[in-house]
């Protein structure tokens, strides 16, 4: 049987999917729901960026919150101290993040498996602690507040719904970038590295420069999400833009949805966000900690039922059903 490479999986399905996503906040226009969708979109974009390196190359990073936070801080500090628009600041943040990723990658990408994970964890902690301690620059633990001056060039909007669509644009652009890379020689080389490093080397596939390059791209893209985060909350502090929780979430969304697939992080982000919002709404005022407990239970359940992630597992299930029927 030939693989299904119809236009349906190629372009039609993603376009339809994004149309549904775009319609969501218009159909359910209640403020609570729009806020949840916005955060889900922003999480999806960040997880897509994470997935380029963590999913395709299999280089599991638990330090990406550092890049996310850098994006938030660089644009915010430039905006507050020099009046530079976040539309420019986000690119500068991305450049800083990408440069730092090249530096980190050049040192740590020779490490294998869990050793690499540990190094990213340490890197994330160092950047987080630095943000807390560089008080003059970052405002320390109390963070930085951005004055509400709505205007497109400040990337500040009075209508929260606009942020929802800004985040959705990021999702679509990052998804397109992912698809392009996955279908290229670069994507194949990354997968070869992930699946079997020695076999890749024996076939003449040079992965180190590619892995560093994609790590930098991943860091730069997630950094842009950080800038949008800052403009959405109009507030930046170390724990909320650089905390370990955040790094874990970027990875978790991709893993739950389908690691190393273009749509996986989007599916994962939507599910994770829906679950956490519902949990908070219904269990929030009950026993404290119950929300996190239930959330963890659901994540474990999903991974037990769909070990390769929701997307790929559903796909495999449908395929089995189809062959059974035909």
């Amino acid at each position: 049987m030939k693989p299904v490479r119809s236009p349906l999986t190629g372009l039609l399905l993603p376009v339809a999917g994004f149309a549904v996503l775009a319609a969501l906040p218009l159909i359910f226009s209640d403020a609570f729901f729009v806020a949840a969708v916005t955060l889900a979109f922003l999480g999806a974009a960040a997880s897509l960026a994470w997935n380029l390196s963590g999913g395709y190359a299999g280089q599991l990073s638990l330090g990406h919150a550092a890049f996310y936070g850098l994006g938030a801080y660089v644009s915010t500090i430039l905006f507050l101290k020099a009046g530079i628009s976040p539309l420019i600041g986000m690119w500068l943040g991305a450049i800083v993040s990408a440069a730092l990723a090249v530096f980190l990658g050049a040192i740590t990408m020779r490490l294998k498996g869990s050793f690499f994970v540990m190094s990213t964890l340490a890197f994330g902690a160092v950047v987080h602690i630095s943000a807390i301690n560089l008080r003059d620059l970052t405002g320390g633990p109390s963070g930085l507040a951005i004055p509400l001056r709505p205007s497109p060039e400040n990337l500040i909007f009075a209508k929260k719904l606009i942020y929802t669509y800004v985040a959705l644009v990021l999702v679509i652009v990052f998804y397109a970038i992912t698809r392009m890379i996955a279908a290229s020689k670069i994507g194949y080389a990354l997968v070869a590295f992930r699946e079997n490093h020695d076999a890749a080397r024996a076939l003449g596939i040079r992965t180190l420069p590619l892995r560093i390059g994609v790590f930098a791209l991943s860091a730069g893209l997630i950094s842009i999400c950080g800038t949008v985060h800052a403009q959405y909350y109009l507030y930046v502090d170390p724990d909320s833009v650089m905390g370990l929780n955040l790094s874990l979430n970027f990875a978790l969304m991709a893993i739950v949805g389908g690691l190393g697939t273009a749509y996986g992080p989007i599916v994962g982000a939507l599910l994770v966000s829906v679950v956490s919002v519902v949990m908070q709404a219904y269990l929030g005022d009950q026993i404290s900690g119950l929300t996190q407990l239930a959330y963890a239970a659901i994540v474990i359940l999903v991974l037990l039922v769909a070990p390769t992630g929701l997307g790929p597992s559903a796909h495999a299930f449908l395929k089995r059903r189809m062959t059974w029927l035909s």
Partner: protein
Amino acid sequence: MAVLTATGLTKRFGGLTAVKNVSFIARPGEILSIIGPNGAGKTTVFNLLTGFVRPDGGSVSLDNQDFRGMSPESRCRAGLARTFQIVQPFRGLSVLDNVVMGAMLRARSIEMAREIARQVLSDLDMSALCDVPAGQLPIGDRKRLEMAKVLATSPRALLLDEVMGGLIPIEVKRMIDFIRRLRERGIALVVIEHHMNAVMQLSDHILVLQNGEPIANGAPAEVTRDPVVLSAYLGANFALSGS
């Protein structure tokens, strides 16, 4: 066409000398077999040739290009490819994508690599298996896939590490035919093989290793009559009474 030359290759692992002073020349359109008992250092020789292990002494060159200090990736790019004794498929990927990984080296785009991969798979009678995940293949097909992957890199010199291992007789016969066709294409071939029948049918030259050292080197008929070789394989008594 390329000549693969190994000169005085030596490798020590701690106190053990795994490979000692191994030299040979593999010429285009010829098959050199390396044989020897388990642990003789055959696979280590391949690791030294391809750069997965750094030698303590000696050198490797392809034509006049010295491979000193070059990575396995660069050596493959220069035209020296290998298979692994324990096959190394990309398990999660389809057979076609596995071969595409090899074909990328000489192709400008994935589409072009796919064309090359399809051609190589058809040469190996594997076209029907294109969409099968590599992890699900039986061992005989995995060995052929291992071969397809490296052939897709268009090597000028090719090292085959026990590609007959685990094959049933009909598959061995097909593999022998296929290796002969590779020789006709002018690829310099170095083969490690335990399947003596295949070795005798294929080899133009045989190099015998024991405890890492070359103990014989020559045409198949000479080598199999060599008392040193017989005693290494079958024990000293047999060699004496046999001669």
